[in-house]
């Protein structure tokens, strides 16, 4: 019989390999010279030719630029709306319609994308039919659709962060003479800033990554990067997508590792300071 420690370690190693080996294989094959993705051309590899092919592919670059713009606007709008929603749910106490708002903000978290995509498109078609707006579909419609599902994630993140803080902090500020708007900007906002930042990143990633909803609400003229990738890979493997994937993994890994190290340093400093305070007593 396996000891418990060994069992846990095995579970982790197997599980993490399952998560990482596919990504690793993509990275490896992005340096493969052969067009046949699966055959390693040892003679001429590693090569950077797929990376240069990628960077000279105007179609992909345009799509990437559109995706970045949509993701940035989506993330910013989601953060504003999601923060307000999170604040309302966590701090405004009971009000009529609170349960509905709570429901509406959590539903998109699990809603199948095809349903969200279809319903958004039908709304835009009906709106265009009725009032002539939105005139055609593209950047604006994709962004609206993305904000709608991203704001739920931001709401949950902000709401949980607020729930971890005592209401009395805001009450204390009121008690010391700060008006509600001032309380929000000098107390609440600084406290939830980490949640707002991670909410922004989350919304950016979700928007950047979305293919199904975009496919519904994008017009024929607008293609986001995932839409381009999707139509490419539906036809089978293509090595330049491997290169693209590798770049994205590298960027993300760099960001996540840096931010984690940074957060950990902050945390460690905080712990140290707390220990010192305890040692000092008083």
């Amino acid at each position: 019989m396996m000891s418990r420690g060994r069992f846990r370690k095995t579970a982790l190693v197997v599980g993490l390999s399952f998560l990482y080996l596919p990504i690793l294989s993509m990275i490896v094959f992005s340096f493969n010279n052969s067009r046949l993705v699966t055959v390693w051309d040892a003679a001429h590899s590693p090569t950077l030719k797929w990376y240069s092919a990628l960077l000279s592919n105007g179609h992909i670059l345009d799509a990437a630029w559109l995706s970045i713009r949509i993701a940035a606007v989506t993330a910013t709008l989601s953060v504003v709306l999601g923060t307000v929603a999170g604040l309302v749910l966590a701090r405004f106490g009971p009000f009529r319609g609170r349960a509905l708002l709570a429901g509406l903000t959590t539903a998109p978290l699990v809603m199948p994308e095809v349903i969200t995509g279809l319903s958004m498109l039908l709304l835009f078609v009906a709106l265009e039919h009725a009032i002539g707006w939105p005139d055609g579909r593209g950047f604006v419609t994709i962004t609206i659709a993305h904000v709608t599902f991203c704001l739920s994630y931001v709401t949950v993140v902000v709401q949980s962060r607020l729930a971890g803080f005592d209401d009395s902090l805001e009450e204390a500020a009121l008690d010391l003479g700060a008006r509600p708007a001032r309380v929000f900007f000098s107390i609440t906002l600084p406290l939830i800033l980490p949640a707002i930042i991670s909410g922004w990143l989350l919304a950016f990633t979700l928007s950047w990554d979305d293919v199904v909803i975009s496919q519904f609400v994008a017009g024929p003229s607008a293609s986001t990067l995932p839409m381009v990738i999707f139509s490419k890979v539906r036809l089978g493997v293509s090595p330049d997508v491997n290169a693209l994937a590798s770049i994205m993994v590298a960027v993300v890994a760099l960001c996540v590792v840096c931010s984690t190290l940074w957060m950990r340093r902050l945390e460690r400093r905080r712990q140290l300071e707390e220990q010192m305070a305890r040692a000092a007593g008083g």
Partner: protein
Amino acid sequence: MTLARLKEILAGEYGRRVVIGVPYAWLLAFFVVPFLIVFKISFSEVRFSMPPYAPLFELTEDGAHWRAIFNLGNYHYLIADSLYIATFAYSIKVAAVSTLICLAIGYPMAYAIARARESTRNLLLMLIVLPFWTSFLLRVYAWVGLLQNDGVVNNVLLAVGLIDQPLTLLYTDFAVYVGIVYSYLPFMILPLYSNLEKHDLTLLEAAADLGARPMTAFLRITLPLSIPGIVAGCLLVFIPAVGEYVIPSLLGRSDQLMIGRVLSDEFFANRDWPVASAVAIVLLVGLLLPILVFQRYQNREIEAARR
């Protein structure tokens, strides 16, 4: 309006309503209203026009009266054609099996992370979350290369001598399971972890003190206490998996589609918006219960954070 006046408004009861109203208005306009439209269209008939459906209310030919056309035909069509029933059943099966596999892989991992030393715990969590930040689409695509007949998996198996001939892995149910489990595993692990991490370890010591062996203690203490985490993780995998579109499109069979693909095909290929809407409504109604259960869990989690 002076700035002071604006401040006054924002501070008062009126301002409170404005603040509540902003996210409310957005969600009503872009989440609730779209569903009502889908609901409405699911009762109309196809037309060769733009938009390609008949209005529910239209003027009679003489122009004197309004006529409501309330057409149940689309729903009848879904029931009558065995294709749709089979598709629904297949989607639920795929989602359910994938969920169970996720649980089987995710539980031990979540457990191992929750019991790891605190310093390694954060690193492990980061490793679980990291793939989530990279493109979902590209991670599914990675499996196309792995599962092909001359793909990495087959090559390795051939080289080791486990098989003589390449297995057909891609475009099978197996590939879909792999794809879903692979993409959704973090969603299983995270709620499980956040539950398991909160367990009071002295409970296990108490159980051991009272004579329970480790396995008994796990089955009688840890497992029952982790049920909320299991439920949340399973719902977080199951609900989106039922409507999954990308994974079966890239990895799945072409003779048996999942419901998300059928919906999209009805819409884009057949341009039958009413039937697509009816499919969406049926799917939504079917998922309503799990969604409500998930919401209850989610709200309780947030309340619990209040302490």
